[in-house]
């Protein structure tokens, strides 16, 4: 019976076995990396998948596993992590855990005053295994396979072939010349040779020297004491800091509670630029939606006219910006708007003289105008298309009735067209708002958020929107990567988007309708 089952499901069992093996491997590696918090996750995941594929009762879930794995690892986990990280100071200089940072600092050494200097000879056998002989006046030391022991200069394993007093071979290992040593220096540098209660480390190309740990750590008081100077460094906000403000890098990450959010709102050097970026994000998303919709609707009304000749041709030409990849056309626009060489300024100068040159992308106000203009170009064809569809679904009899009652064109537009359009298009307009709220490509490819806001402690520009500001904080800052602060901005955007979506669902009743259908 069991044999039959195994035969029938051999492939499946082998694959599941492989999966579990990989999970165990990842778990072991994670433990090796001291990432205890997540080490159990691969095992849990693999266990769950194995259960789903072996249990007949859970058959439908088998179909969902592939998609869910990606969704949970690449979307759910990162979103959760972002929210958690926003309560920490993780970033450049604060990437390690406290234990890792302490271990790293404790491995640092210095040469004490009574240090003994050793010259050395390095040997390597055919397999590349290295043996070192350290020579000092008080005796020689053999260091091999991570173990140090005393060795007598007359030891039989040391063979002096040319009789110059220096050994050329160590049993079957051959002496390395200086050029052969150079590529191995980083390997030698990592050696911490423990011998007779002292520590010996590489000093320079030709010497080793006794060394002592530079720092002593007291876990009780959480202080690091520098053995060379006697200065005491206290753990403070994720970095060991002396009384005079000196810090020892690397630091480590610590929980900061709401500090990142508080800084965004109350620290004037952070909150000033942040508030500007925040307001501009809303203004941009709102204005661009209104502008694009207005021009799109106007164009749609124009080309929907049955008496207009060439209207099919016009529609095809008008839709061109929508048919091309935005990342390319935004870059083309940034060339056309170039202050010195761009075609637009050239035309202006030709027509009106040098005074007409406009700082399209350099001036704070004009850069915002340029962004709206380019996004209008990119977005109004889409609005035209959806408006055309909606216009055609309005019954002509409504207009006829209005005309019989003597309504003017404007009255027909106000009382019939607009209300009947806004009903189906409302959710799409909210969607456009939400899309532009995070329209990173437009900002980044056109202005990179420039021009910069003067006096900002965090990097921010006049045209930055929240998402490009987040990107800057996380990956482009002059003060390194402020990942914790960036995560806090991300989390705020999450909240804003959730609010907009809730509003959209409430308005359209889409959620109720969907949950009826599921």
């Amino acid at each position, binding site marked *: 019976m069991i044999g039959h089952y195994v035969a029938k499901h051999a492939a499946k069992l082998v694959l599941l076995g492989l999966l579990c093996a990989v999970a165990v491997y990842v778990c072991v590696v994670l433990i090796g990396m001291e*990432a205890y918090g997540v080490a159990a996750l691969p095992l849990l995941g693999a266990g769950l998948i194995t259960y789903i594929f072996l249990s007949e009762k859970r058959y*439908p*879930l088998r179909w969902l596993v*592939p*998609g*869910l794995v*990606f*969704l949970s690892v*690449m979307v759910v986990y*990162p*979103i*959760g*992590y972002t929210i958690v*990280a926003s309560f920490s100071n993780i970033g450049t200089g604060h990437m390690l855990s406290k234990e890792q940072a302490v271990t790293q600092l404790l491995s640092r050494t210095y040469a004490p005053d009574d240090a003994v200097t050793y010259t050395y000879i390095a040997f390597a056998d055919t397999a590349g295994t290295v043996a070192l002989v350290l020579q000092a006046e008080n005796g020689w030391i053999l260091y091999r396979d991570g173990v140090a022991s005393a060795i007598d200069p007359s030891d039989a394993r040391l063979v002096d072939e040319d009789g110059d007093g220096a050994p050329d071979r160590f049993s079957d290992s051959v002496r390395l010349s200086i050029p052969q040593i150079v590529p191995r220096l980083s390997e030698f540098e990592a050696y911490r040779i423990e011998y007779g209660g002292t520590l010996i480390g590489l000093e320079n190309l030709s010497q080793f020297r006794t060394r002592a740990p530079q720092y002593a750590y007291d876990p009780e008081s959480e202080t690091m004491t520098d053995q060379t100077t006697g200065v005491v460094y206290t753990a403070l906000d994720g970095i060991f800091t002396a009384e005079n403000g000196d810090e020892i890098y690397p630091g480590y990450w610590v929980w900061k509670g709401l500090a990142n959010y508080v800084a965004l709102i109350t620290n004037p050097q952070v909150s000033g630029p942040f508030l500007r970026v925040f307001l501009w994000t809303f203004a941009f998303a709102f204005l661009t939606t209104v502008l694009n919709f207005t021009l799109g609707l106007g*164009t749609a009304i*124009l*080309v929907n*006219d*049955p*008496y*207009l000749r060439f209207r099919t041709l*016009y529609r095809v*030409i*008008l*839709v*061109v910006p*929508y*048919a*091309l*990849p935005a*990342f*390319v056309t935004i*870059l083309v626009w*940034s*060339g056309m708007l170039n202050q010195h*060489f761009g*075609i637009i300024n050239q035309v202006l100068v030709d027509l009106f003289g040098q005074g007409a040159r406009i700082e399209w992308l350099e001036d704070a106000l004009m850069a915002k105008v340029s962004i709206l203009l380019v996004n209008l*170009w*990119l*977005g109004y*064809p*889409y609005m035209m*298309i959806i408006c055309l569809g909606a216009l055609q679904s309005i019954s002509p009899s409504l207009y006829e009735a209005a005309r019989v009652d003597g309504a003017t*064109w404007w009255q027909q*537009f106000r009382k019939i*067209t607009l209300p009947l359009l806004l009903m189906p298009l409302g959710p799409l307009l909210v969607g*456009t708002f939400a899309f532009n709220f995070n329209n990173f490509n437009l900002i*980044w*490819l056109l202005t990179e958020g420039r021009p910069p806001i003067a006096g900002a402690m965090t990097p921010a520009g006049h045209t930055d929107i929240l998402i490009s500001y987040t*990107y800057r904080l*996380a*990956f482009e800052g002059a003060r390194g990567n402020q*990942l914790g602060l960036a995560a806090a901005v*991300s989390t705020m*955007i*999450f909240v804003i988007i*959730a609010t907009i*979506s809730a509003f959209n669902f409430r308005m359209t009743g889409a959620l109720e309708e*969907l949950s009826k259908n*599921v």
Partner: protein
Amino acid sequence: MYNKHTLLGGLWRHALILFLCAFSIFPVLWVISASFNATDNMQLQQLIPPRPTIDHYRQLFTSDRYKFASWLINSLKVTLITASLTVVLAGLGAYAFSRFRFKGRRVGLLSLLLIQMFPQMLAMVALFLLVLSLGEIFPWAGLNTHTAIILVYLGGAMGFNTWLMKGYFDTIPRSLEESAKVDGATPFQAFYKIILPLARPILATIFILSFITTYGELIIASILLRSNDQFTLPVGMHLMIADQYSQRWGMFSAGAIVAMLPFLVMFVLSQRSLVSGLTRGSVKE
């Protein structure tokens, strides 16, 4: 709402539309012209090139400074793999949601809907750290690899596409598979042999949608890809224009034209299958 035009009425309408057409198409004509113009200098360019040449295209593919050919291949590779796998993954999930009744189905569908509302790129900090540590375990899936970026894209595409596909599967009558099951087909055979051929339009739609979004993705690619020869087109071309481009405008323009082509092909294809997709606002804006 519309009347026959008077002469004047016809005139201003055409004038207005021609102005809009010029607005829409000028940048495109300008960049096409620049790509064939003999001069590389933006300021000397004329709209009708006096001596048209394909030199810029040749430079583009032989330049040492920019690895345009690699970017193009990288972009196509990442986009095609992502789009294909998205179709497969979304198809499997959508079939389960559409055809099986199981515990957690309703919760699953609604959570998918909620999750897909949050743009994945907002979690950029976490994605960066995740891929960084992934690379320490599996170097072939770490920073600066296409594997990593495809894995990230696949996650981001799941929610929306599963919903879209499920909606379509719901419209295919169940009786078709039931008769197949009577003949002894397993659920997978019914899915593969009956549903998939019938669902070809939605498979094409999702492939195209995924292609279009992935092709222009900039932020995750900028974070994860580090070296010139691994860049995708958006990252590479951004680099190209950040760097003294007014003196290499011809080459940039040639690159722009080449980069537009795959997208344009997809757009034209999409017009057949995407008509309903457009009105749902499911494509880029």
